[in-house]
């Protein structure tokens, strides 16, 4: 055996015994890996790899620290060096947010792991058209609540997805396991995903749901959740009603679940793509976020839009004189 092979064998044995040690510490519930607890996916790692990190899949530890410092400086809402428009958008002192301050513990430079460039694959022409139409609606003064985004309407957040991704705050999830179901309680807008494990078929195709129709099963120690029956009203990065989402939950150590999702939507994307985010154990508690309780912002946005209409009308009249 040459020296290189011998060294590789030593490393392999060490890795295997470390894995066995972790395995022994893994809790079990109802004969399956226990995923229960409160977990957070808050992170500053972007979904897509930034241009300046092209070709770089992982940070070194020092690079991760430097990147975190840079992102926090750039997103610091205490700064006042932008235009009035930027200043309005940067409202709130930075400490009012809770989007995390660290890159993911795997030190990946993007949530997307496939395609290897860390980018969402190109949209199909049909999906591009749908996205452009939505952007046009969002840019005009809102005629009604339906013209505004789902988070503003307190309907759904990217935090809930699915797939579930880090957002501005409330990035907390509670997972519960019962004999026939896995339940994920999402802090943002207190959404709940109830995932049956009994192998029942998906709902008929004419039933569409905001968060899709999930079915779960175990592949070894990994919980796999297969969701279909989405609605085009909740597009995920350009997806439409044909989205088929596969999520995988693997508890890789007592404090971490590795969450992977694969997006398959042939009418929207030119290929499938996959993302990965570690969920980190957090003590909680989770608070109720009853988004409709006092969503004054929606009234204010609509009254603002009417004020804009009126101003435009008056300007037009003056122009006619």
């Amino acid at each position, binding site marked *: 055996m040459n020296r290189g092979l011998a060294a590789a064998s030593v490393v392999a044995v060490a890795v295997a015994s470390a894995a066995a040690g972790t395995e022994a510490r893994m809790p079990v519930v109802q004969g399956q890996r226990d995923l229960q607890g409160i977990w*957070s996916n*808050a992170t500053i790692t972007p979904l897509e790899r930034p241009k300046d990190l092209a070709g770089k899949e992982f940070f070194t530890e020092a690079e991760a620290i430097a990147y975190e410092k840079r*992102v*926090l400086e*750039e*997103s610091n809402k*205490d*700064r*006042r*060096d*932008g*235009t*009035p*428009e*930027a*200043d*309005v*958008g940067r*409202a*709130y*002192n*930075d*400490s*009012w*947010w*809770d*989007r*995390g*301050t*660290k890159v993911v513990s795997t030190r990946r430079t993007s949530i997307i792991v496939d395609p290897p460039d860390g980018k969402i694959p190109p949209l199909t022409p049909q999906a591009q058209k749908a996205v452009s139409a939505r952007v046009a609606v969002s840019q005009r003064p809102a005629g009604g609540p339906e013209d*505004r985004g789902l988070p*503003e309407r*307190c309907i759904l957040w*990217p935090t809930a997805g699915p797939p579930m991704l880090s957002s*501005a*705050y*409330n990035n907390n999830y509670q997972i519960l396991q019962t004999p026939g179901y896995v339940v994920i309680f999402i*802090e943002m807008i207190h959404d709940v995903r109830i995932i049956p494990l009994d192998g029942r078929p998906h709902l008929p195709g004419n039933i569409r749901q905001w968060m899709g129709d999930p079915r779960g099963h175990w592949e070894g120690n990994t919980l796999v959740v297969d969701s279909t029956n989405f609605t085009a009203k909740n597009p995920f990065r350009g997806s439409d009603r044909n989205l088929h989402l596969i999520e995988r939950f693997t508890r890789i150590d007592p404090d971490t679940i590795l969450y992977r999702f694969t997006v398959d939507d042939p009418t929207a994307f030119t290929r499938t793509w996959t993302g990965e985010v570690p969920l980190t*154990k*957090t*003590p909680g508690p989770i*608070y*109720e*976020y*009853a*988004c*409709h*309780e*006092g*969503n*004054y*912002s929606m009234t*204010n*946005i609509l*009254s*603002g*839009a*009417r*004020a*804009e209409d009126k101003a435009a009308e008056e300007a037009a009249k003056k122009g006619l004189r």
Partner: protein
Amino acid sequence: MIEMRIKLAVAIVIAVASALLNATVAFAHHAFAAEFDAKKPVKLRGTVAKMEWINPHAWIHVDVKDPDGKVVNWMIEAGTPNTLFRRGFTKNSLAPGTEILVDGYQSKDGSNRANGRDVTFPDGRKLFLGSSGTGAPYDEKK
């Protein structure tokens, strides 16, 4: 006291810099630009009447004396209650009667509502100090 100031002339250099910065602005519950008017910056000085701990955003009600001495109530949009609470903010943090200065932008419909761009106490202390982390376990972990 209400000081209104209008800044219309903006150097192109600043606009370009701001466009770059905008790329990193985090996704919010709603677009502030749809609710508040960049052409209506306001500076208010008043006393806290009450704080509404309400989802999805808390609102600070402030009594502000206008130039004629008449008291006008302004509503200042704040962060989400969950985050405020996690950062140690409680109902005692901004008690009624506390004097504050608000530097923000008025609502597009011209009502007495504003976003609290900067909220400070008369001695210059910020209501919320920027922090490098939330103190949550996932921030401590590395």
